């Protein structure tokens, strides 16, 4: 009597279900994706229990990195260009269309106005390699030493609905934040948002 051998088959799996799931997840992630902007400085924000979300539109972000350098950006490309034109009028610099276009693509920047023109003339890859020194800021009304105030003013001129968000690094020293604060206060801006990460409130805490 011959030995009955079990019929051997290749170890196969039905991949249909797996494939369905993979593509469902894929479509979910594509729809919810919000791409990380190419920021001029890496900033690690502190966390807070505040659950208010940062709005996506009509927002200007003042970033403060750990060395106390200040970066500035607004959300809409049209408004960025309008802001640059306004700034050009204030400082008596005229920007070419190409420079305006290049400026429109910057989510945020930290160049003093007098170096901005040469920075915008560079190609995007070259721009990335340059270490931006930050926007000069203090509490005075001086055009040169408090350029942040001019940027804020002209950004609001370009878009009056802009809200202000301050994004500071964990390690930024308080005096540099104070400079930003007094620059804003000197224009009578007394309400703004601090961007923070989210952390869970302590157990038993309720918002009222």
């Amino acid at each position, binding site marked *: 009597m011959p030995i009955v051998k079990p019929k051997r088959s*290749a170890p*196969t*799996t*039905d*991949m*249909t279900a*797996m*494939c369905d799931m*993979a*593509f469902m*997840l*894929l479509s979910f*992630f*594509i729809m*919810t*994706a*919000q*791409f*990380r902007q190419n920021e001029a400085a890496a900033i690690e*924000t*502190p*966390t*807070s*229990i*505040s*659950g*208010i*979300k*940062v709005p996506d539109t009509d927002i200007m972000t003042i970033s*403060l990195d750990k060395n106390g350098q200040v970066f500035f950006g607004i959300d809409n490309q049209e408004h960025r260009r309008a802001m640059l034109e306004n700034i050009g009028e204030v400082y008596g610099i005229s920007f070419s269309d190409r420079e305006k276009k290049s400026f429109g693509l910057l989510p945020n920047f930290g160049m003093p106005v007098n170096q901005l023109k040469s920075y915008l003339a560079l190609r995007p890859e070259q721009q990335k390699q340059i270490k931006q020194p930050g926007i000069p800021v203090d509490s005075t009304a001086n055009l040169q030493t408090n350029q942040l105030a001019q940027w804020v003013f002209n950004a609001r001129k370009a878009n009056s609905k802009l809200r202000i*968000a*301050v994004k*500071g*690094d*964990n*390690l*930024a*020293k*308080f*005096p*540099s*934040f*104070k400079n930003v*604060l007094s620059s804003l*206060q*000197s224009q*009578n801006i*007394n*309400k*703004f*948002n*601090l*961007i*923070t*990460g*989210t952390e869970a*409130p*302590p157990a038993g*805490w309720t918002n*009222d």
Partner: protein
Amino acid sequence: MANIDTGGGGGKHKGGGKVRGKKMSTRVDMTPMVDLGFLLITFFILATTLNKPSSMTLNVPDKTEKVETEPIKASKVMTLFLGQNNEVHYIAGKAANEDPKLETVRYGQQLRQAILDARAKIGADFVVVIKPTPKSTYRNMVDILDEMAITKSKRYALVDQLTPDEEKLIADKLK
């Protein structure tokens, strides 16, 4: 590999019948498709910012309008000095020139307890004055403001100038 061969290949021809075309399997090998799917998923997971940042509102008093307010009694005030190395020094219920006891706490639970204790001692009209020193960081300030929200201290002020008495008091903590 992943396709199952369900046979269907025409093997034998039954006695003199019609020669039928060889039936092909309709199974498709899905492996590359799944591979691609997961590759794209990985990309989108890595490229998205999942946790959206939240924001806390900060209102500062108007500098241009001068409203004369009644000075707050030192006995109602807890003053927090944000020092270096993530330490908070505080005095409660006494002004800086009345030889108060300067306590030092860390951020987090210790600080929260200190605020709650001071409030229990001082009572309902308790005011917190936050004085960040030049040695403190932005994070310290956010932590303190957060602590105000957690302990529900509604009356607080952010003051960035130290009086000479206060400077003397915390001078040795800031070295």
